[in-house]
């Protein structure tokens, strides 16, 4: 039953088709992503009104929140790809794991850095061991673990499979980490710092946020396409179609 349910996906699981598909989507996705991201960010930076409490520092929200949300989104899509790749032995899904992992890591790093830069004016310190911050840091370590593991094997195909397994184990643990950290922190220190208070946000602030959110999502998709193409080339390089393609592109360039 599972087999037939996903039969329609089969042509997309064919590396060659997928390679060309990604190639076709890439320019559209990339332009769209850059346009939306810039629109949202510039709107947020220059046109939306300052926050009555935080002044202009709140404008960091336009990258902090999207990158924080998509850092987790990227992890779940990576884990889903890993699951599909391992259970149904679909190789392109396994390759997608390696395509997404660095993007997720960069998003997480952005969320951490922008959060820290926001924390300094708001809380007076770059870093506190708050629940959400800590679990974001752990998320970064999980990404780094997946990347490190996938690179640690002499045979790339093996590294990818093992890293996929780790990604799945990690997803089981992510909620556990999240709740345990939350519990831990509330026990240790009360709400001494007002943070993450969710004021009913003004539409003129909300729209650019939503647009930025969409922008980073599109960028995630675009970068995944780009990186997946590289992965396909790596793992299919012995195929005639790859050889031909590479030769062709070389001739076109020169």
């Amino acid at each position: 039953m599972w087999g037939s349910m996903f039969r329609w996906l089969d042509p997309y699981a064919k590396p060659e088709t997928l390679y060309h598909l990604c190639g076709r989507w890439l320019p559209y996705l990339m332009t769209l992503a850059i346009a939306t991201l810039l629109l949202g960010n510039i709107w947020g930076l220059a046109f939306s009104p300052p926050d009555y409490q935080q002044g202009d520092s709140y404008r960091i929200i336009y990258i902090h929140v999207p990158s924080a949300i998509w850092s987790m989104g990227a992890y779940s899509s990576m884990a889903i790809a890993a699951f599909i790749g391992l259970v149904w032995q679909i190789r392109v899904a396994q390759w997608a794991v390696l395509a997404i992992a660095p993007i997720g890591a960069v998003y997480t790093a952005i969320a951490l850095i922008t959060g820290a830069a926001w924390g300094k004016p708001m809380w007076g310190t770059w870093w506190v061991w708050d629940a959400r911050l800590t679990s974001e840091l752990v998320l970064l370590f999980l990404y780094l673990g997946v990347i490190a593991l996938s690179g640690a094997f002499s045979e790339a195909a093996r590294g990818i499979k093992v890293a996929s397994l780790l990604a799945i184990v990690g997803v089981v643990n992510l909620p556990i980490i999240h709740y345990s950290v939350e519990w831990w922190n509330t026990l240790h220190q009360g709400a001494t710092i007002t943070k993450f208070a969710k004021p009913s946000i003004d539409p003129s602030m909300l729209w650019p946020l939503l647009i930025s959110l969409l922008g980073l999502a599109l960028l995630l998709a675009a970068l995944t396409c780009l990186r997946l193409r590289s992965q396909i080339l790596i793992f299919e390089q012995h195929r005639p179609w790859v050889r031909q393609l590479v030769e062709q592109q070389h001739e076109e360039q020169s």
Partner: protein
Amino acid sequence: MAFTSWADFWAMGGYALFVWLSFGTTYGLLLGLWWYSKRQHQQIQQQIRAKAAREQRVRQHQEREK
């Protein structure tokens, strides 16, 4: 427009360091990732070409050996 002048805009109400630090590192990291992925893609193509060339070399070598 929430700011009255460009200078105002760059000053970000006194929070310039933090805001521009955030946006700077964000775009820096994203551009870096994009550049890295692009370069990786090209390197792989180069490697594939190098391998094809190498195969040629090996064939020649084997011809000579025979």
